[in-house]
């Protein structure tokens, strides 16, 4: 069966955006979207447009800041960067996510009962 692309869980995109900005510093929306695509090895099903809802949400929470600036090829674009609160949230959420993923791993690894019969 061909591997289908992963649907994004609620909230995961926010976390990805935060992580990307933490790693790369100031970046515009297109850059963030491309970076996430690249890192996931194109496994994430992402309409690039959806990233903007995530960006405005994070901005309203004060986790990222935005500023109009000029891109490397002299184009006007809005640049986002992670704030101090954003970094704190990132480390908390990342830890949570890690725990959840561990638990999911263990639960899914349970041997099937029917197999012993």
């Amino acid at each position, binding site marked *: 069966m061909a591997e289908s692309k992963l649907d994004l869980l609620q909230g995961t995109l926010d976390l990805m955006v935060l992580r990307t900005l933490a790693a790369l510093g100031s970046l*515009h929306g*297109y850059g963030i979207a491309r970076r996430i695509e690249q890192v996931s090895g194109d496994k994430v099903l992402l*309409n690039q*447009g959806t990233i*903007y*809802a995530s960006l405005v949400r994070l901005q309203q*929470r004060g986790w990222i800041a935005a500023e109009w600036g000029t891109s490397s090829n002299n184009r006007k674009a809005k640049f986002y960067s992670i704030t101090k609160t954003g970094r704190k949230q990132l480390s908390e959420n990342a830890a949570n996510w890690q725990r959840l993923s561990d638990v999911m791993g263990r639960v899914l690894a349970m041997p099937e009962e029917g197999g012993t019969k």
Partner: protein
Amino acid sequence: MTDWLRQSFHRLTSTFRRAEMDHELEAELAAHLDLAIEENLRRGMSAEEARRQALIRFGGTEQAKQQHREARGLPVLDIFLQDLRYAVRQLLKSPGFTAAAVLTLALGIAVNATMFSLVSAFLLRRPPGRDPEGVAVVSSVNPAPAFHADASLVSAPNYLAWRDANHVFADMAAADEYRTVSLTAQGHPEALRSAAVSLNYFTVLGVSPQFGRTFEAGEDQPGRENVVILSWELWERRFGSDASLIGRTIRLNRANYVVIGVMPASYRLLGFTPQVWTPLVLSAADQTAAARTDRSLHLFARLKPGITLEQARAEFAALARRAEEEFPATEKGWGAAVRLLPDFLIYDFGIRSALAVMMTTVGFVLMIACANVAGLLLARAAGRRKELAIRIALGAGRLRIILQLLSEGLLLALLGGSAGLLLAYWGINFVRASMTFNEAISAVPLSLDWNVLLFALAVSLACAVLCGLAPALNASRTDINANLKDESRAASPSRSLSRLRRVMVTGEIALALFLLLGTGLLFRGIFLVEHQNLGFRADHLLTASVTLDNARYQDASQKTLLVRDLLARLQHLPSAQAVAVASELPASGPGSVTFRIKGQPELPADLRLSALDAVVSPDYFQAASIPLLRGRTFTETDDATAPRVVVVNQEFVDRHLKDQEALGKQIRLDVNGATPEWSEIVGVVANVKTYSEETRDDPEVYEPFLQRPLSSFSLMIRATSDPSSLASALRGAVAQVDSELPLAGVMSMPALIERQKGGDPFFVRVLGSFALLALILAAIGIYGLIAYSVGQRTHEIGIRMAMGARHPDVLRMLVWEGMKMTAVGAAVGLALALPLPKLFDALFYGLHLREPWLYLLMPMAIMVVAMLATYIPARRATRIDPAVALHQQ
């Protein structure tokens, strides 16, 4: 938490920065696509392919924008604003409908807000002073049936005993609230309402003076008691707000009093707002057994922390029982009641039941108004079925449709509420200008305060739900298929819709009839009182009241001398026919007295016979024109040295002497502070109503003034000309006798009666206009319903007439439909109104309402109004040319 707050704030603000944020997003998305296209070009795609790929990777731009909006803003608020905008457009499209609905609601809300300003002023305003809910008022409970028997005054011996014995109050003060003092300033005397209060009175109530101080220890001792505290109003009016007045002397009751303080203007306790306060001096005489029948004190007490009202009540019930055991002669049957200060003031003021009736009435008016508007909205909803069906077919949820129709109702209600508040502003001014029938009422400021504003808002919101919900729920049940196919030709309006409207109109008729019957009863009651024969002639009578001070008029002979002198002078005034003094003017609610008839067994204190008791000078019956039925009235020779005599009224004979001959009978009155003596009945006079505002006749005993001189009495002059023209001559005559003796309440008897009635006639007129408003609104409701249903059935009527139905047949059918609703509504209203006379009897003391014909007349009136409201549109329908009707869509 702060994150959440911050986000909510941003979400809210972005709702209102929509255009700006959309614009910025637009720019950002454009930049995004440009960057993507550029990268694709660098990878070697053709320009067209680069753009196509960029757009594919981006996903839909519209979806992205929508997601952005939802993430940044408040979708619910967005939808609401959208609904509101839509509602505004809808209402603007039909200005006639909008005006009718807004005006109807405005009237309903205005009468409610206006009446609520009375509730706010009288019931909701906290009394002044620190923590008024911690102050209790202790009253006596009179075992005999009397007005406010459970809020009677307390005697000085009980005050002293209870103050010292109770464990529930931190402190307990007493006030004799109903004293009159004469103030002489700039040469002219004026009678003032004063209160004599115990030294701790102000501390118990927790109020401090605006200037100066309150009473100090020792100022209730004889010789030191000549200190006085003024009310703000008196200080302003008589002393020109002179701040240097503190410490100076003024003349009260012919003695010098030092002004020690002025109370703030805000210090008002509804019925208890005297103009001066002096110390209450309790002497040894106030602690004797005789003082027990002199109940003249209000007791104010501060509850100890942690003590509940229930505990205080239990304590005082026990204290009252102890008094009953120790002094059975005077205390038998008497109890004690404890209330919190705010409750007591309202109870004492006796305005609660009137306000309850008013608020119920205006509440009904509002319900009728809402029913009318709901009916209008339903009719419109029927006209919009197709539009709604299309919206639902396009995917609008039921909830969305309901919310949208509700927001239309909300908008109407808010518009109605604003217009209603404007009307209420006038209404409140009108009520304030009309409510001047006594000082206590006019002293309470009516205003459009926050309570009224909040109430109007709440009422408007309630209206929004009441008006909007029925049409909204109904519309949301729209059957798409039926409605889209339906070309409305030949279709009668949906059954459930017209059933709902019929129910509402029936309800309106029931409410309107209920209100008409209620106010009709009250109107009739007041009319009877206004036109009753009082038993004396009130016209051409000038009255005034006099209170003699102890300084100059200590004993009986001095009082008698003054009265004789005064009457002789007044007799010589040019147009004076007869002059008299009396303890109480006729029909002004004299005090009552218990008595024994010689030859009948002595009864225990609480079972003794009682009668009204008036003390009058010889010419009283002539001056008042009260007919003498048998025997004689008093003469100048019935004085202190002569055998004691009394005159009784016919009711006394009927009630207490039955068939026996009254003349010559001996009775003994239990008069305060006097040794009981046997008096002979020498005459019987006709009955005079006990109160001019009630229809009661009570047994009454008249005593001659010369045998029992009083220090507080009224003057009465029967004049041959307009009595008011005698006022200055009266003042002059009194000044000649005693220049420092103030006359109070100089007015004609009819004016006095008008005043005694207080707000009743005004109150009933206001109620009547509300009932009329209700009737008009209900008539409009019926008219609207029939007109609408006729309009909807034009096609059907056309068919009927084409098939040969004649005009009268159609007319009969339509009118019959209207009359069925009216009859059902009237029957319900009639049934609801049946217990009203009983209810009013309990609420309004002394009105006797038994008017069965009203129960016939009012339903007939409403039938006639409903018939007209039905007939007009029905008649119009029958005039339609069948050919036109059949072609009508």
